[in-house]
């Protein structure tokens, strides 16, 4: 039951080619929709039925989001795909772009048709040269076939789709920062409301979705919302493309049903490297609070289960850590990331991420103070929920998670001025 949706071309030669995509039934849904002039509301209803939740991290139901667009309002509308993939641990959209770009393109055309957008952009992170080239080549093929451009397949529907390349900024994965970035500015998030559906790219109504969300659309419409929903579990429809990395034998991308037990996923990924014990798992990209390995082994991979365990499924990026990892060091590295990547506009995030990092760094260096753990608790509380975008929460979550589950390691660093792990504790 793997690779049924976004990665369904994987078994084919040159899975990224139009040929391979055609072989799995590609662009048939688009043709049907355009020929039958399927009512946009019907498409939205089907997507709602599928229980597809946004794969970019926030998990917002895609069909509901599309419903926010007022199609009768005059003026331009835009469709934007988020292929910025910057959340540490995540590398699934890269594979969708590399191995099945046509499905994303088909999904985007259908989405654009549904919301009445004549122009769309796929924002691809700047470092992704190979995926970008694959996507551009696929765009060229799709244009040649008449799937893009004016009067698509004689339906009267026009849609221009372009790639936009980022240039190295995690924050541009945040949807409104991404829009600012397309506008040629610094990627600084806008405050919401107004949400992009009302005030998005160039100030116009815009729908923005993750690569995986959009690439799922053709299959959902082909096989039906119920089919997709039933692949998964309650509240988590369909399959999910998990990126699993860390101290495991066979890291990579696995498209499996929602609700699959973590231990099965771990097994697919070849199990723990060198047979070492599993110490901790970050289940949804680095912004998701850490979960101790033993607890994780009991969990299933879906929104509710992970949330109940105090973390989040996020982008489905699973980082597995064995017992050789010092959690202070891990947190130090993660805190450095948020400190480096804060866009700088909101006070709590700009000042707070640096403060967090400096404290954790100090503890890691053996210069921690007794009051530091309290201070960390307190600062994270003053960042989370107080910023324009969720980067503030993303910076606070890992600290809170680590202090919750591995406080003793931090305490040890402070007390003994050295590392518990390397001390063999």
């Amino acid at each position, binding site marked *: 039951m793997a690779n049924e949706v976004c990665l369904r071309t994987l078994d084919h030669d040159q899975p990224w080619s139009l040929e391979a995509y055609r072989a799995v039934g590609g662009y048939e849904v688009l043709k049907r929709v355009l020929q039958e002039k399927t009512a946009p509301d019907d498409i939205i209803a089907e997507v709602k039925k599928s229980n597809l939740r946004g794969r970019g991290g926030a998990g917002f139901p895609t069909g509901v989001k599309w419903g926010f667009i007022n199609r009768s309002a005059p003026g331009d509308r835009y469709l934007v795909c988020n292929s910025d993939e910057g959340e540490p641990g995540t590398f699934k959209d890269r594979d969708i772009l590399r191995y099945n770009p046509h499905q994303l393109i088909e999904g985007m055309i259908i989405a654009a048709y549904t919301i009445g957008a004549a122009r769309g952009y796929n924002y691809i992170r700047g470092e992704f040269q190979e995926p970008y080239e694959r996507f551009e080549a696929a765009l060229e093929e799709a244009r040649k076939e008449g799937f893009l451009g004016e009067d698509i397949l004689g339906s009267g529907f026009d849609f221009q789709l372009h790639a936009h390349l980022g240039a190295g*900024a995690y924050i541009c994965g945040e949807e409104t920062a991404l829009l600012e970035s397309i506008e040629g500015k*610094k990627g600084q998030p806008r*405050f919401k*409301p107004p949400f992009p559906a009302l005030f998005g790219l160039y100030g116009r109504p815009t729908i923005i979705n993750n690569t995986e969300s959009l690439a799922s659309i053709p299959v959902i419409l082909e096989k039906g919302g119920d089919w997709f929903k039933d692949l998964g579990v309650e509240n988590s429809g369909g399959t999910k493309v998990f990126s699993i990395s860390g101290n495991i034998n066979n890291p990579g991308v696995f498209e499996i049903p929602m609700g699959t037990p973590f231990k099965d996923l771990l097994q697919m990924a070849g199990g723990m490297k060198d047979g070492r014990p599993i110490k901790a798992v970050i289940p949804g990209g680095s912004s998701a609070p850490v979960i101790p390995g033993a607890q994780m082994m009991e969990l299933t991979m879906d929104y509710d289960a992970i949330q109940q365990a105090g973390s989040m499924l996020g982008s489905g990026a699973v980082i597995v850590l064995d017992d050789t990892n010092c959690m202070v060091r891990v947190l130090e590295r993660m805190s450095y990331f948020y*400190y*480096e*990547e*804060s*866009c*700088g*506009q*909101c*006070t*709590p995030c*700009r*000042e*707070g*991420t*640096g*403060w967090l990092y*400096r404290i954790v760094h100090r503890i890691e260096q053996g210069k921690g*103070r007794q009051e530091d753990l309290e*201070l960390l608790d307190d600062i994270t509380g*003053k960042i989370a*929920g*107080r*910023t*324009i975008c969720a980067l503030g929460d993303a910076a606070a979550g890992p600290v809170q998670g680590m202090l919750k589950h591995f406080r003793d390691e931090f305490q040890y660093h402070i007390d003994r001025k050295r590392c518990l792990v390397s001390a063999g504790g």
Partner: protein
Amino acid sequence: MTEESTITIEVDGRALKAAPGAMLIDVCDAAGIHIPRFCYHRKLSLSANCRMCLVEVEKVPRPLPACVTPVNDGMKVTTNSPMAVEAQKGAMEFLLINHPLDCPICDQGGECELQDVALGYGSDASRYAEAKRVVADPDIGPLVATDLTRCIHCTRCVRFGAEIAGIRELGATGRGDHMTIGTYVEHAMGSELAGNVIDLCPVGALTSKPFRFQARAWEMVQRDGIAAHDGVGSNVHYHLRRDQILRVHPKDNEAVNECWLSDRDRFSYQALSAADRLLKPLVKQGGEWRETDWQSALEAAAQGLAQARGDDGNQLGGLLSPSASLEELYLAKKLMRGLGSANLDHRLRQADFRGDPPKVPWLGGPIAELEEQDLVVIIGANPRKDQPLLGHRIRKAAMKGAEVVYFNPLKLDLNYRAAQWVANPRDWVLEVANLAKAAGVRKGVVNKIKVADHHKELFKRLKAADKALVLVGDLAMGHPDYGLLRCLAAQVAEAAGARLGFLTPGANGVGAALLGVTPGEGGLDAQAMLAEPRKGYLLLGIDPGFDLENPAQGLNALMKAECVVALSSFRSPDLETVADVILPLAAAPESAGTFFNIEGTQQGFNGAAPPAGEARPGWKILRVLGNLMNLGGFDFNTPLQVRDEALGMLGDAAPDNGFEPDPALELTLPEAELLRIGELPIYSVDPMVRRAPALQATADAQDAAYLRLNPEDAKRLGFTAGDRITVSQPQARKAVFEARPDPAVPQGAVALCTAIPGSQALAGRFGEVTLEKA
């Protein structure tokens, strides 16, 4: 806000009425409920990044920023609940961790929004044990000092540049913690409104450079005033210590200056302590200047004027600054009339007095309405520099989609999109005539020319526009065919059903016109009384080498006169050459008076500072002169009495741009190989402005010193940038300027400003010039 569309919200237990969708912070501000803030500013776009304005809203689990939270009916807000206060304290702590503790040496100390809020919210001991951020301070020009380590990244200054000043000079470069405010590449800010960032910056990161380290906020007293350098009449606060004005801030007046101030109005106070400030009366005896006491000086003045007058009052002429107060102008007029002279004028930079003048020229409507226009045609003006805050209003209109079209003899550097129809000074008049022809005018010069399609199109749009305005400004007034230009403009406006407006000179041009500071029956205007020299002159608030349309002619006439009495705040070489008595005049901030601004609003002011040295307010000087010369009706004890009498005389006279256009006026400017364009630079408009060192150090002032000509002409003449060029004009001395090729100047023209050092030798603002390498 109509009754049906109001909603009710509750803030801190008080029920407040509000418009639905209004931002919570505005609703609270209107009700006097203070919410701390740094990034929010009512005139700037919302950025919501400081996170200081967090408040608690019922049923919302986390604090919300009041500046971007729209109100809705029944909303319950607490601005001081434990949740709100904790959130505000949190933001404050973050702001302070990297903020230096240099309040004792910070110019913002005592009036710092951060300091104020910190007292309320900050905790005593910093828990931040790390090294603080330090940022290098770039030099961004003579007006604004930077201490960017103090910056709290509110981005008000950046948004101001983009949205109000219309030039993005300051920016926030770098990301996150590394983000810094600055110009990135060090260069001076070029905006004429740059000083406003001083007020906007909530901390001491951007402060007034001239004011630096002069005084602490709490040592100063604040007095109100009216800025005296253009017709806007910006409302200001003077800040003084020991009777000395140390800085000038805007005072909010939505209808006039909103909350802004032009740099000219902000920094001209520096002139009050200029080295050549005239502190004592001066009398020339045997060709030598002597300081003397008031009594002797006034007697000398009275005697001199009486002698020059002989028994023909018309042997006297009065040249009065259009920035003098109503009271001064009224008494000067009364004096001249009392002496039997009808020769009086305030239109000192106007070149052409043909035709029926507008009754009382003015803007033609309220200042605030400028921003609501759909189409503005501007003939011979650069409002951005001539009256910066009118320029700002016109820019606002343009940003809202208005079409702005300029007819000028040279291309302007604008901060919004506008059409600029540029032609050399002679063809320029023909361009305007073309538009008039398109408007249906069929007499005079118009007959000889052909209308182009774009003129017809423009006229059509002008006619179709809901709110259209034709503005005539200083460059047109300085043109030898102003009479014709004015006439054409009026005919265009009339035919299109557009409003006509004049960008009148000085701070009180409208007041001067209302009072009739213009030639009486048979009297001579400003040009004529210098072209036909008088035996005696009264000069009020002017420097004849700088403030006359044709300084060569003017200085010549004054030289020949038997007696010139000048009321002036400053010494000047030209004044000392031509005058016989110079009486030290209090400057505008030093005396009480009244201005009518360009929209006709009467604004009174009191002296904020005592006059320097022995200087006296103009009304007092003129009162004594009147009495000494035995003219009745000069017994005033207070400026209020003068004002009441002046206003009484005005009755219900009101500004009125009406006049009878004379279609027979001919184009008089002859064709020539090179014609001068004598712009009046922003920082040359009056004696005070010319003496403010900070303003003189700006690029605007320094660029005005060059002789600019089209690169093609420069090539043809063999001039390159930096060449020293001797300029000659008929009936003038030669003067030397540095050449600068500039494509903004059309071929066949030479931009050479008036009222700049060296220009005293020259003749009229427009007309033939010949150039040769010095």
